[in-house]
């Protein structure tokens, strides 16, 4: 129902107000990232962008801050990118085959395999943090990308999504493939994977954001500056109070940390919304 008159005015006012609240923290960060530090410290700062936008971002990207031992933010973004891509691709790469196996075959212990994967849905890595850390340490995975990525892909969400989708593929299609003499490998590669394109895209978006935004696990498992992700880097920049926080660079880094996930969401909005809202169909 498209309203008119007073009710439409109320709706527009509420939406504008909501939008203002949603965008305000990001806008203030943007303004701060364009100011000299002195203007921020001389509180309250202005709400209009200043002259140092390019200089601040260049400084952050190339030199970082004292709090991060001058580790450049560009290097942190690269670490984050490697981690996020490895999590997204890795999780899809192990989940799609396992879902295919439990849906398109009958073999002993099939149900047990499915349940073993399924229960991982319940326990986020935050809950089993210390023992997972110990195992990563025993396997020599501290400060390595496998150590950063593998514990985070041990989860069933993607497997469940693929399983639900595979169950909707018509039996006739499988029969036709069998009659044509196609084995399970060819059916997977030439039929199932192309049909799953939309699901793969949706999952990729959600998993990329999940990976990029990780905090607790990278905090534990990485120590070397070369492995610092941008999300952890921001934490180090705020520091512990003995040095003046370089707020203009912190806010520039915060916005740099937002850009990749936002770009992915906007570029793939259609798939992303579909993947988020309809995973159980």
């Amino acid at each position, binding site marked *: *129902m*498209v309203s008119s008159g007073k*009710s*439409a005015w*109320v*709706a527009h006012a*509420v*939406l504008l107000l*909501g*939008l203002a609240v*949603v965008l305000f*923290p*990001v806008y*203030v*960060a943007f303004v*701060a990232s364009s100011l000299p530090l002195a203007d921020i410290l001389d*509180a*309250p700062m202005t709400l209009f962008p200043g002259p140092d936008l390019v200089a601040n971002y260049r400084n952050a990207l190339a030199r970082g801050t004292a709090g991060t031992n001058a580790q450049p933010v560009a290097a942190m973004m690269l670490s984050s990118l490697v981690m996020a891509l490895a999590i997204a691709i890795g999780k899809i790469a192990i989940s799609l*085959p*396992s879902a*295919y*196996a*439990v849906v398109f*075959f*009958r*073999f002993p212990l099939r149900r047990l395999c499915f349940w*073993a*994967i399924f229960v*991982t849905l319940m326990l*986020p890595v*935050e*809950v*089993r*943090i*210390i*023992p997972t850390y*110990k*195992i990563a340490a025993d*396997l020599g995975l501290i400060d390595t990308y496998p150590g950063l990525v*593998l514990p985070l892909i*041990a989860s069933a969400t993607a497997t469940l999504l693929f399983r639900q989708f595979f*169950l909707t593929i018509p*039996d006739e299609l*499988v029969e036709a493939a069998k009659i044509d003499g196609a084995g*399970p490998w060819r059916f997977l590669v030439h039929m199932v994977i192309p049909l799953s394109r939309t699901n793969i895209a949706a999952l990729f978006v959600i998993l990329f954001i999940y990976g990029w*935004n990780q*905090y*607790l696990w990278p*905090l534990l498992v990485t120590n070397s500056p070369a492995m610092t992700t941008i*999300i952890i880097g*921001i*934490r180090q920049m705020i520091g512990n109070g003995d040095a003046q926080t370089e707020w203009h660079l912190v806010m520039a880094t915060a916005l740099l940390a*937002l850009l990749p*996930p*936002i770009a992915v*969401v*906007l570029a793939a909005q259609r798939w992303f*919304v579909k993947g988020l*809202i309809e995973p*159980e169909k």
Partner: protein
Amino acid sequence: MERRVVFPGWLFPALLLAPQLTVTFVFFFWPAGQAIRQSLQRSDAFGLSTRFVGLENFAVVLADPFYLASVEVTLIFSLAVAFLALAAGLLLAVMADRVVRGTAFYKAVLLPYAVAPAVAGVLWLFLFNPSVGIVAAALRRAGVDWNYLLNGRQALLLVILAAAWKQVSYNFLFFLAGLQAIPKTLVEAAALDGAGAHRRFWGIVFPPLAPTSFFLLVVNIVYAFFDTFGIIHNVTQGGPARATEILVYKVWYDGVVGLDLGGSAAQSAILMAIVIALTALQFRFIERRVHYA
């Protein structure tokens, strides 16, 4: 649900399953088992010997006033976050459903979803920081004695706002999808019959949204319990005086900083029980939705 037509053989599916099963066993079952084993053991101060202590760690944890205070903080925090994020998401969805045709608004509201909780914490910290924050300055000018670094209630309020802000987009998306599935003719018919806006909402619009709301309530509580570590760690470090020490933060602090492995593992085991209960609730809902929708 099962397929009728399947492929024969067991070797190929076994190979397909092997990578995920391996990762799951090494990084899920093994550590989860360790957590439960550790929760039943106690190490000496140097980690040289461990002995079996049964449920003693649990008894110690559950009798610890700091743990009980953390439970209380977690409940207040997660219920406040869920309520705020759900109410704001629903309000915006109802208004957007009434008037919005373009997608610019829609895209802008999606923004916080892409923001890491840790970064959301930093953005809100910057607004409310007592020395540089512009909202903090405005509050002081309005006569509020704002300093979340000293005032526990203010600190809790700040992390609640930051956590709820991040979750509004997610709730908005689900509510809007739910609202758009309600036939507009139904609402118009009720309007013609003289039902007021209030009546139309609670009588016609809200009932079909109830399952979605329940699902979202569980999702929001799970989010507030487990995904907000980055917010707490960046904004308050659990302080001042433990006023914002939620359970996940305490598990990390006691285990990593305090090196109390048995106590931390017992807390992990309790958290696992909470997640399992919440997930079971969520699945009952999903099953029902599949059957009846």
